[in-house]
């Protein structure tokens, strides 16, 4: 009976990750009375917003079977460029914001062009490109943050709307867009085709290079968006923005059902994966777990989450 119910549940590919998230939320709220407090939920939402935007980008690339380890570096670099445009060049903040998104898309495009035209493995290429973008960032800023970001765009980073942080709404909008693209458009189907069998996709006349380049560019765009929102939030362009956006989104995507081998999963699942990681990191701090234990606990959580997922899939075959 239970087995059947569970079997039914896991037949929806998202139910696994959603139930894990639900269990964690319940446990967390039992363990700390501060957890379900509205301020704390806002904090979780805000943290999820930034890492979530990167997760959307990374999961779309992972559907293609690609990875971009330079998304964090792109986000940081675009943030710095935005800061310079606003503060030193004196551009209108909104214009600068938009320009940075274009630049981010351009960086993503460069990654995509290198991967497709030179047929490079994206993992290693983007390790290199992370050095390039991050290095240029250092060269320009000499490591010093650019302060004095106009307060006009502060709203984008720190404002609230219907009780939730603006970046969170932005994340939701782009999540909806990403889900729409992947599930409802031919382009999205082509993404799955490319990730599932590249030569077969070519044989069907799908412009696989364009699809891949397009997603890389979109990912760069999203990375720049996250970077700029963070600049708006901090009120200064920190060169170190994005340093911690590298491995988490990949783990989140896998937890959420997008394997690194591509072809399956959705950005929505990946966001649930990111939420699991986010809630756990939140509750660890709320409970006052020693900082020395934190990295061990969050590492263990990743391992447990993917293990549970794999075990449950083995027992209740989900096809």
């Amino acid at each position, binding site marked *: 009976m239970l087995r059947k119910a569970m079997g039914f549940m896991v037949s929806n590919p998202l139910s696994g990750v959603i139930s894990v998230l639900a269990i964690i939320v319940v446990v967390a709220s039992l363990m700390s009375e501060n957890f379900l407090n509205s301020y704390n939920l806002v904090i979780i939402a805000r943290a999820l917003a930034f890492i979530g935007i990167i997760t959307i980008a990374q999961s779309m690339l992972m559907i293609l079977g690609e990875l971009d380890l330079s998304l964090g570096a792109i986000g940081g670099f675009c943030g710095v460029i935005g800061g310079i445009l606003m503060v030193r060049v004196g551009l209108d903040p909104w214009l600068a914001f938009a320009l940075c998104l274009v630049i981010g898309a351009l960086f993503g495009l460069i990654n995509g062009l290198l991967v497709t035209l030179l047929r490079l493995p994206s993992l290693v290429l983007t390790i290199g490109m992370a050095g390039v973008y991050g290095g240029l960032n250092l060269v320009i800023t000499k490591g010093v943050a650019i302060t004095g970001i106009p307060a006009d765009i502060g709203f984008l980073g720190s404002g609230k709307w219907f009780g939730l942080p603006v970046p969170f709404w932005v994340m939701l909008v782009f999540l909806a867009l990403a889900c729409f693209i992947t599930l*409802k*458009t*031919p*382009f999205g*189907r*082509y993404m*799955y*085709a490319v990730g*599932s*069998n590249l*030569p*077969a*996709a*070519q*044989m*069907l*006349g*799908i*412009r696989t290079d364009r699809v891949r380049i397009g997603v890389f560019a979109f990912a760069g765009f999203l990375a720049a968006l996250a970077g700029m929102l963070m600049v708006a939030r901090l009120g200064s362009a920190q060169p170190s923005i994005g340093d911690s956006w590298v491995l988490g989104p990949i783990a989140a995507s896998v937890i959420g059902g997008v394997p690194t081998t591509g*072809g*399956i999963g959705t950005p929505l699942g990946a966001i649930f994966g990111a939420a699991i990681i986010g809630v756990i990191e939140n509750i660890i701090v709320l409970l006052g777990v020693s900082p020395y234990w934190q990295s061990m606990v969050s590492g263990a959580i990743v391992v447990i989450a993917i293990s549970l997922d794999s075990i449950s899939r083995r027992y209740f*075959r989900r*096809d």
Partner: protein
Amino acid sequence: MAYLHVDHVSKTYPGVKALDDIVLEIEMGKVHTLAGENGAGKSTLVKILTGTERPTEGRVMIDDQDAVHHQHLHKSIAYVPQEINLFGNMTVAENLFMPFSRSHHGGLLFRRRKLERAAQPWIERFKIAARPGDKVRNISISDQQLLQIARACTNESMKILILDEPTSSLTETEVERVFRVVRDVVASGCGVVFISHKFDEMFAISDTISVLRNGRLIDTQPATMLDDRQLISLMSGQEIKTDARLQPEGSEGEVILQVDGLSGKGFEDVSFNLRRGEILGFAGLVGAGRSEVMQTLFGFLPARAGSARVEGREWRLGDTHHAIRNGLFYLSEERKYHGIFPGQSVRRNIGMPLFGSTARGGVIDARRERERVGTIVRDYDIKTPTLNQNITFLSGGNQQKAIIGRAMACDPRVLIFDEPTKGIDLRTKMEIYRLMKALAERGVGIILVSSEMDELRRCANRIITMYEGRISGEFHIEQASGNALVGAIHGHGGDGHAA
């Protein structure tokens, strides 16, 4: 006494009863053929015999012991799977003898020279056109197929050899090679389980034939007690006419495709015409370069020289998107690598090139897509529990039908079939032939690359032969029965230009 005993075996996959209460005995020193339409359950049965799948019910007795509890018994069963399953980056010799302990090449050290020397006799025996040190991904598909069979035969504890459609990508000469080996194996006292969709092969090699239909064992008979017609009706449960010639009528339309001096990887200076409404056959030995010509024309492989015109207009080479947009469709012979999208549903697989009609304003209309795909699944009789079934779990033949249905749905003007009936059962084969004919008669130009002479003679209006990358002859169908055609395929004589 039967060495292998299938005892009321059933196998259920989610939504599919692949095998239903099968009882079967495989005897030593005999060739036992499993016949059945696509999806009948042949491969599933074989996988249960080899221990790669477990039965849901029933047991497999090997040497009078229950194989579920004695896994080691499966070692005496050598198996050649339906799909090619080799290590592309490794050498022929390594592929032949892996795992080394089984073939007495184990021990502490891996001795490449010794291994390659040991591989030589096998290569010669199976007439594989490769050296022991060649990388497998650089040898032809037919050689890979032969290598797989050779690999199974290197198993010294082999008592039963199972061949799941070993001949689907081989020409008659190579099939004969395989048969010689099968007879050797039988002569040495082993039993052989053989699967094929080609009747002449079945009758040529079998002692016993078992017929499966929809997962049930219909009948087991000595081969001599059966003939084509009986076998067909056992397999399909209905009468099917097979002897009709299926050339399209009115194949004298204007030239729709004109190829001039095309050269590329593995072929030189290929020129030919295709007329509207005709089926143009391409014959040749496997490895003659026919697939390469077609893939180059289609834009999947780069062209070195030459040009093509479609409907009088200059054709852009090297761009598959352009090709499909302009009505030239190529169906690869390699379903696994160039055809299906594993892990994706049947609906997504078939719906992939149909967005012209199923998407509006850049958004997919789910209802229309379901309808269109549903129609294709019905029209081509694709056996799947639901449209959302993962295509990986369809039987090989049904995957092929899905791909063909998908191509035909794209309204092509020139359609290139590369070994379209490889691994397809007879009933579906006939359907495909009829579909090709109907398409041609609607004005589509069709190129049919095939290694089955019978198929070409039955369907094509005209046959071009290729030998080692060059066109070696061209025949009208009326002239195609003689020796000249066979000669041209083998690269001698046959200057029977007629067209």
